[in-house]
């Protein structure tokens, strides 16, 4: 595998080297220009996809960063005589700074996802355009850059611009490839599918989005810097027009915005066909025809060309290969090792120290008080059953402990350290994991990647290879190993519930919060799940367990905490608590309490 990768790396480098020699071949300048335009669109579309394709934050404001780079290079080289090549990193830095400024505000606001982010970025690019138009930077007359001296990297200036375009393009693709196969990329893919869950699974979403935005803008800025010289004359209406944002979106979506190579394929197709139609009488018909192809492509291949081809290729290969062995029949697989932990079980029942201290925790949503002063200790190694009627605040308590909701007041201590003010990913990193009542897997990641991601960003912060080993261990444990290459949508409900469990466990949590893992399962599946929960505890993990199914609660819990109307109502041994007439009355009404 690594050998093949090295080989393709050498192949790519060789290809770039050969292309770099093209201007020396003495071909007409048309070829330089045509290929430059293709490289230019590949770089722009690919840079756009780093944030918008990978993380799903569709930006319509890519022209703002591209334009900032163009005008930085134009201003510095024309008005201040800065050498052209020196202006390029500055152009990238200016664009990145603009993106960081926008992102630092916008990425803090949960409501600004989806279409609203797209519109906001569009608006920002129009504002930037108007400012440049009405100030000395452009002033409405445009900036002439054709007199800027271009270094003699190649015999002709157009050859030099071609070479720079090629280097930009190769660099952009290399950066994007590395990102797509890194922790950052995995985190961005998870943000795309479900940002809230991503944060709770330990991904620093704010920092990742900001990093992706800055990288994306920096590349666009540098590409803009080169393009400023290529066009020779800059106008605000051309630079900040609708063409750049719309074409990069279309190219990426056509090729497949979630794949590192997708935007490049889309860009090559669209740019080549647009170039073919820019001259002559066919221009309009050609444009219309390209647009028509685009509509058809989007309707038929909504995921994009590259992912669709990949899927088709994978299907072809699995048909050729022997079907995967399903001998590893689902069932409870004995967990190896950890005798130390199972030895500990017996001694768990007596008083142990508190792993989590919940101190007078309040949480209100507007006028609604969901939690009104909960104080509760979770002891190391215990299974604490958390019960209460619907709306009593059980799930809110879990959301507060994991940091998904900030506290209104009160404090949370994990091993004596305050975690109440930490962001959710920080809390996940300290060893708290949860499952969701309604499973929320990352829809576009395979079962294996869903679990491996939690291992990579959980308390142990495993490397990619180690996280895969850990993930497979828990897929074995939950009996999902045979389905590791499937997408979550192909699993049934109880498999998805077990996927939730595997995902929480692979984070190597010290404290595991289970939110109604048993609801919706049939009696046989419930028995299996109860067995799994016992084994998890046997390995030394502390469990808080929200459940309506009283049989399971009584069977599993060492202690039961009853919540009612946002406050702790009762706490103690299962049998004693469940016999308490006041507890019975809040569950079943006063009449049964006697």
């Amino acid at each position, binding site marked *: 595998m690594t050998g093949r990768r090295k080989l393709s790396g050498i192949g790519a480098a060789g290809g770039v080297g050969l292309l770099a020699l093209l201007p020396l071949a003495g071909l007409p300048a048309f070829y330089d220009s045509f290929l430059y335009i293709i490289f230019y669109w590949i770089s722009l579309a690919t840079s756009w996809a780093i944030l918008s394709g990978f993380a799903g934050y*569709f930006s319509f404001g890519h022209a703002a960063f591209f334009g900032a780079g163009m005008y930085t290079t134009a201003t510095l080289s024309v008005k201040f005589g800065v050498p052209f090549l020196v202006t390029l990193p500055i152009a990238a830095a200016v664009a990145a700074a603009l993106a960081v400024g926008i992102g630092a505000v916008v990425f803090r606001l949960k*409501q600004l996802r989806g279409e609203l982010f797209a*519109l906001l970025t569009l608006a920002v690019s*129009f504002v930037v355009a108007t400012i440049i138009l009405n100030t000395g930077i452009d002033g409405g007359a445009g900036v002439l850059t054709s007199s800027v001296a271009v270094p003699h990297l190649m015999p002709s200036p157009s050859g030099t611009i071609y070479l720079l375009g090629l280097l930009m393009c190769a660099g952009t693709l290399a950066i994007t490839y590395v990102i797509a196969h890194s922790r950052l990329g995995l985190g961005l893919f998870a943000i795309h599918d479900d940002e809230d869950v991503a944060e709770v699974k330990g991904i620093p979403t704010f920092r990742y989005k900001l990093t992706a935005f800055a990288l994306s803008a920096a590349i666009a800025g540098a590409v803009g810097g080169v393009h400023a010289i290529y066009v020779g004359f800059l106008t605000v209406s051309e630079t900040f027009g609708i063409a750049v944002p719309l074409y990069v979106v*279309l190219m990426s979506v056509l090729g497949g915005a979630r794949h590192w190579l997708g935007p490049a394929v889309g860009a090559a197709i669209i740019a080549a066909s647009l170039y073919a139609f820019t001259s002559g009488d066919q221009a309009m018909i050609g*444009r219309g025809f390209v647009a028509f192809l685009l*509509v058809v492509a989007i*309707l038929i291949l909504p995921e994009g060309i590259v992912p669709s081809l990949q899927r088709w290729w994978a299907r072809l290969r699995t048909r050729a290969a022997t079907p995967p062995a399903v001998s590893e029949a689902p069932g409870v697989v004995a967990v190896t090792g950890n005798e130390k932990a199972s030895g500990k079980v017996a001694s768990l029942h007596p008083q142990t120290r508190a792993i989590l201290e919940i101190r007078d925790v309040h949480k209100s949503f507007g006028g609604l008080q969901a939690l009104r002063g909960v104080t509760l200790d979770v002891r190391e190694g215990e299974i604490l059953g958390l019960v209460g009627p619907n709306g009593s605040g059980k799930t809110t308590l879990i959301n507060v402990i994991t940091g998904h909701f900030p506290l209104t007041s009160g404090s949370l201590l994990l091993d004596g350290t305050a975690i109440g003010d930490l962001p959710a990913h920080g809390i996940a990193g300290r060893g708290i994991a949860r499952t969701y009542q309604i499973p929320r897997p990352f829809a576009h990641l395979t079962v294996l990647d869903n679990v491996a991601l939690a291992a990579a960003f959980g308390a142990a912060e495993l490397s990619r290879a180690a996280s895969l080993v850990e993930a497979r261990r828990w897929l074995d444990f939950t009996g999902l190993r045979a389905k590791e290459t499937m997408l979550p949508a192909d699993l049934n409900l109880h498999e998805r519930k077990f996927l939730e469990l595997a995902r929480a466990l692979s984070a190597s949590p010290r404290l595991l919060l289970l939110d109604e893992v048993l609801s919706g399962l049939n009696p046989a599946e419930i028995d299996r799940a109860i067995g799994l929960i016992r084994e998890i505890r046997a390995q030394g993990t502390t469990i808080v367990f929200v459940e309506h199914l009283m049989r399971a609660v009584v069977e599993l819990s060492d202690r039961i905490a009853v919540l009612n109307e946002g406050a702790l109502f009762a706490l103690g041994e299962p049998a004693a608590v469940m016999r308490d007439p006041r507890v019975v009355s809040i569950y079943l009404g006063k009449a049964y309490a006697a």
Partner: protein
Amino acid sequence: MPSMTLLGQSLVSGVLLGGLYGLVALGLSLSWGLLRLVNLAHFALAFLGAYLVYHLGTVWHLSPWWAALLIAPLFFAFGVLQHAVFLYFRVTELTSLLATFGISVIIESALQWIWTADFRRFETHYASTSLKLGPIYVPVVELAACVAAAALAWATWAWLRWTYVGKALRAAAEDPEIAVAFGINRRGLAFLLSGVCAAYAGVAGAFIALISTLAPSQIWTWLGVVFAVVIIGRLGNPLGALAAGVLIGAAESLAMATFSPAWAPVVSFSVLIVLLLWQPDWS
């Protein structure tokens, strides 16, 4: 500081232009808010309508009002057809944006092919007529556009609020599956709404033909400001779209009078940015 007359005049012009913004925004807001489809082709359709009114008026000497009546059912059919295609291919909110961008470019190319890229102006004898209120001129056509926008917005609002069909549409937008479980014919309603939105584009087009100069590339100039209007007015809210249109139109026009015309775009987009960041809860 400009004179009061100038400010008053620009306020009136701005409000009237804002009515037209609201009229164009109306169909876009409805399809986005109630069908979850971002229909970029709405702008192209409005300009197609404008060119048809222009053509019927200059070549066949048909009054724009009759032309609008003729176009509206045609566009209704187009909207239904477009929705049928989108439904068949299970178009989502995001892919609708891309697909309708493609449709817009197709329409733009067709406009350019038939009517060329030159600027066209629909000359009518009332195009330059104005009422005079004290020192302020009120152009008749723009007043009519504003009145039509208000009437359509109000009628749509009443339709959504008080009729069974309107309530069913709002319910289906809120939670499609539950609405269907309660016996709402969501597919049928979606076809109806899609047709209505397209017909509104035709009506807006008739007024665009009367008020502004036509060129195929102008399709894109309306994009930013109308999207700002749609968001500020809240998705799917007809009266909100009208109010936001008037607000933006007036703000732009006053900014042009007090500062410089070149700064006008900043006004609507700054308003949009501030509102997106601040997110007041006024629905």
